[in-house]
C-alpha cells in the first residue's frame, strides 16, 4: 500500500513538471494501442480504423498490439501496469471494465482505479430473436408463451457471465419469466443453434444480423435505447419494459495517472476521427457499430452506471469465473 502511494505521489510530482513541455511534444514516438481480442473481430477492426485516422493527424504511427486472453484481462493488466505516458493505450469493450470485476474472483487490476477512460468510441445493441417456428410474433406474445411453457424454454447465450447471458437475465427479471440458460461459445454459435432449433431464443449482437436479414431468425426486440437503424421495424425492449436497456460499447483507455493534457489531446483526436463520415460507415459495416461521442463526464457516468447495473445482476444470478 505504502509503495503504491509513493508511486502515485512520485508520478504526481513528476507530472507537474513534465506536463507543460510534455503535452507540447506529445506524441514524439509511436503510440501503441492494446486490443483485447485477436485480429479480425469487430473491436479489432474498429481499433485499426481509429489508429489509422489518428496516425494521420498526430504525425506518429499508432500501432495495434493484439493481446487476447481471459476476456480482456490480459490486455487490461498489461495496459494498467504500463507507464502512464500516453504511449500505451487500450481499446476494449465494456465487458472488461464493467463486468469482469464482478465475475472474476481475482482481478489482476482494478478496472476503475487503475484505468483512466480516454473516450468512448462506438456502441451497438443486442437482438432478442426466436426460431421462426416459435408461435410468438411479438415480445408480449413471447412473454405470455414463456409463462405458460413448462419446462422452461431454452435460451442461447454467448457464454456464462457474457453480456448476452446477463442481458437476458435482466430481461427475465423484468418480464417475470423463466428460461433455461444454454451457453455457447459466442453469439454466432448461439444464433446458429437457435436457427437449428436446439434452443428457441437467443440474445446476441451483430453476429446475428445476417440470420435476421435472411429470415432464419425472427427478431422480437432490440435492447438499445432507440431502435436499430439496421432494423427500424423491430421495437426496443424498452418500449414494453421502460428503463430496460443493454447497450454495448467500445472505449479507449489509458493507465491511471496519465497526464490530463495528454488524455485531452487523445480525446480530441478520437472525437475528430469519429466525426468523419467514412469512418462511421466502416464501423457500421464491420460490426453494426454506431460512433459514440461523449464528454468525459458522460463517459465516466456511463461506466459507473453500467458497472453498478451488471454488478447487481451478477449478484442476483450468481455468475462467476474463478
Amino acid at each position, binding site marked *: 500500500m505504502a509503495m503504491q502511494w509513493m508511486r502515485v505521489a512520485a508520478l504526481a510530482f513528476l507530472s507537474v513538471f513534465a506536463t507543460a513541455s510534455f503535452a507540447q511534444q506529445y506524441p514524439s514516438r509511436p503510440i501503441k494501442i492494446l486490443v483485447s481480442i485477436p485480429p479480425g473481430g469487430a473491436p479489432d477492426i474498429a481499433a485499426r480504423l481509429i489508429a489509422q485516422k489518428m496516425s494521420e493527424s498526430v504525425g506518429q504511427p499508432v500501432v495495434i498490439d493484439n493481446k487476447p486472453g481471459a476476456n480482456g*484481462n490480459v490486455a487490461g493488466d498489461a495496459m494498467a501496469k504500463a507507464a502512464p505516458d500516453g504511449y500505451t493505450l487500450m481499446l476494449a469493450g465494456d465487458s472488461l471494465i464493467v463486468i469482469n470485476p464482478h465475475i472474476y474472483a481475482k482481478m489482476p487490476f482494478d478496472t476503475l482505479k487503475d484505468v483512466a477512460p480516454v473516450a468512448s468510441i462506438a456502441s451497438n445493441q443486442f437482438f432478442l430473436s426466436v426460431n421462426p417456428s416459435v408461435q410468438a410474433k411479438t415480445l408480449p406474445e413471447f412473454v405470455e408463451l414463456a409463462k405458460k411453457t413448462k419446462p422452461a424454454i431454452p435460451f442461447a447465450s454467448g457464454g456464462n*457471465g457474457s453480456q448476452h447471458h446477463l442481458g437476458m437475465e435482466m430481461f427475465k427479471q423484468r418480464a417475470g419469466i423463466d428460461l433455461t440458460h444454454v451457453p455457447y461459445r459466442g453469439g454466432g454459435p448461439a444464433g446458429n443453434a437457435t436457427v437449428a432449433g436446439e434452443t428457441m431464443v437467443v440474445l446476441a449482437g451483430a453476429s446475428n444480423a445476417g440470420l435476421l436479414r435472411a429470415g432464419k431468425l425472427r427478431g422480437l426486440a432490440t435492447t438499445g435505447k432507440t431502435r436499430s437503424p439496421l432494423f427500424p421495424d423491430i421495437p426496443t425492449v424498452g418500449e414494453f419494459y421502460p428503463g430496460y436497456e443493454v447497450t454495448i460499447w467500445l472505449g479507449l483507455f489509458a493507465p491511471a495517472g496519465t497526464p490530463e493534457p495528454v488524455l485531452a489531446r487523445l480525446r480530441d483526436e478520437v472525437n475528430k476521427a469519429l466525426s468523419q463520415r467514412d469512418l462511421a460507415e466502416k464501423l457500421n459495416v464491420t460490426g453494426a457499430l454506431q460512433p459514440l461521442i461523449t464528454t468525459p463526464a458522460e463517459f465516466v457516468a456511463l461506466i459507473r452506471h453500467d458497472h453498478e447495473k451488471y454488478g447487481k445482476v451478477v449478484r442476483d444470478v450468481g455468475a462467476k*469465473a474463478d
Partner: protein
Amino acid sequence: MELLDNLVFGFSVSLTLQNILFCFLGVLVGTLIGVLPGIGPPATVAMLLPATFYLSPVPALIMLAGIYYGAQYGGSTTAILVNMPGESSSVVTCLDGYQMARKGRAGAALAIAALASLFAGTMATLLIAIASPPLSRLALKFLAAEYFSLMVLGLVGSIVLAHGSLLKAVAMVFLGLLLGLIGTDINSGAERFTFDVPMLGDGIGFVVVAMGLFGLAEILANLEKRDRRQIDPSIGTLMPTREEFRLAWPATLRGTTIGAILGVLPGGGALLASFGAYAFEKKISRDPSRFGKGAVEGVAAPESANNAGAQTSFIPLLTLGIPGNPVMALMIGAMMIQGISPGPQVMTQQPELFWGVITSMWLGNVMLVIINLPMIGIWVRLLKVPYRLLFPSILLFCAIGVYSLNNSGFEVGLAALFGLMGYVFYKLGCEPAPLVLGFILGPLMEENLRRAMLLSHGDPLVFVQRPISAVLLLMAAALLLLVVLPVFRKTREQAFKEAA
C-alpha cells in the same frame, strides 16, 4: 447433374490465379517436406497455421490441404532412392521401392508411385464430391446429443487405430482430455487448472500443443539420429515396362479402395492406409516371397493408398467438422482462426470453400505428378542439405509462428515445454496423435454433453432415445468390445507388425 454442377462451380473457384498459386505453393511445400526425412505434414501445417491468418479462408485451406497430400508424393521419392521414409506413411514403400532402385529400376518405381498416387487422388476427389453432400445433410440433423456421441466414437476410434500399445493410446487420450480442461469452462464460467495465470484463462492454444508435440519434438528426436544418407544419383528411365504396368494397375485399384476406406475412419489417414494396403497386397499375392525384393505391387498399392487416405480423411472434417487425424485437427484450427466453425453447415454456407478445396485437390495431384517426375533431380539434390543447417532455421520459424499468434512470449515457452514432452513421449513409444484428438475433441464433447443435458432437463436417456446418437454410441461400444477381444487384439498387433 448436381454433382457436375458442383464440380464446375468448384473449379471456377480453384482455377482462379490466386488459388492455383496457393495450391501450387502447398503441393510444393508438401513435396519438399515429404522428401526431407524427419519433418512431416503435422509439423509443417502447425508451423504454417499462423501464416494462414493473413490469407482468406479458401486459399489458406487449399494450401494446407496441398501440403498433406503433397507430402505423400514427396515421401515416396526418399523411400525409393535412399531407403529412408520421407514420411511415416511411406515406410512400407521403402521395402520394395528401394529394392527396385537397387535393380536399376528407380525411375520406374518413382513413376509408378506418382501415377498410382494420381489415380488414387482423382478417385478420392470424386468420392469426396459424391459422398459429402448426403453425409452433411444427415449431419445437419445433429444437435448436442448426436455431437457428443459422435465424439465418443471418434475418441474410441483413435484408440483402436493407434498403433503400438493400447494402454499407451488410452493414456494419451486421457492426457489430452486433461490438457483440454485447462481454461475457462463455458458452461459454468469457472476457470480450471489455470493457477491464476491469466494467460491460461482461455486454455492452451491448439497451435502451441501441435507445434510442440509434432514440430519441436520431431526435431529433437531427429537430432539424436546420425545423419547417414547415401544417395544413388542414377535414376534410370522413368518409363515402367509393360510387365510392370500389368502388375501395378490392379494393385493401384485395390490400394485406392483400401486407402479411401481407411482414410475416412476416425484415427485413420495416410499412414494407416499405406500399411493396410501393403499387408493386403502381400496376403493375396500368389507369391508373397517376392515382396521385399522389389515387387511392383509393393510400391503401387501403398502409394495409391496413402494418397487416397490422405484425401478421404477430409470427408469427416468437411461434413461433420470432426478431425480424423492430427493434420485434420490442425485444419479445424485453421478454419476456426478464419472464423469458420467446422461442421455440416460449411457446405451450404460456404460452398466456395467446400467445393474449391475439393477440386483443388485434383488440380494439386496433377501438379504433383509434374513436380515429382520431370523435376526429380531437384529433390534429389535437396536430400543433400545437412540437418545442422536445416533444423535451426525450422526452429526459428516455429518460434516466430507461435509468437505471432497472440504476440505472447509465454506461448513460445509453452510450445517449448510441449516439445520436451513430445520428446519424452517419443522415447516412451507413446504416439501423440490420440493426445491431440483428446485435446481437441474433449472440450467439444464436454460442451455438448452438458448442453444436451441442459436441453433434456437432466435426463441422460436423451443419448439413447435419439436414433442417430444411439447408433453412434452402439458403434463406439462395438469398437471397444473388439479391442478387448483377444482375437482381434492379436490381429491388430499382427497387422502393424507385418507392415513394419
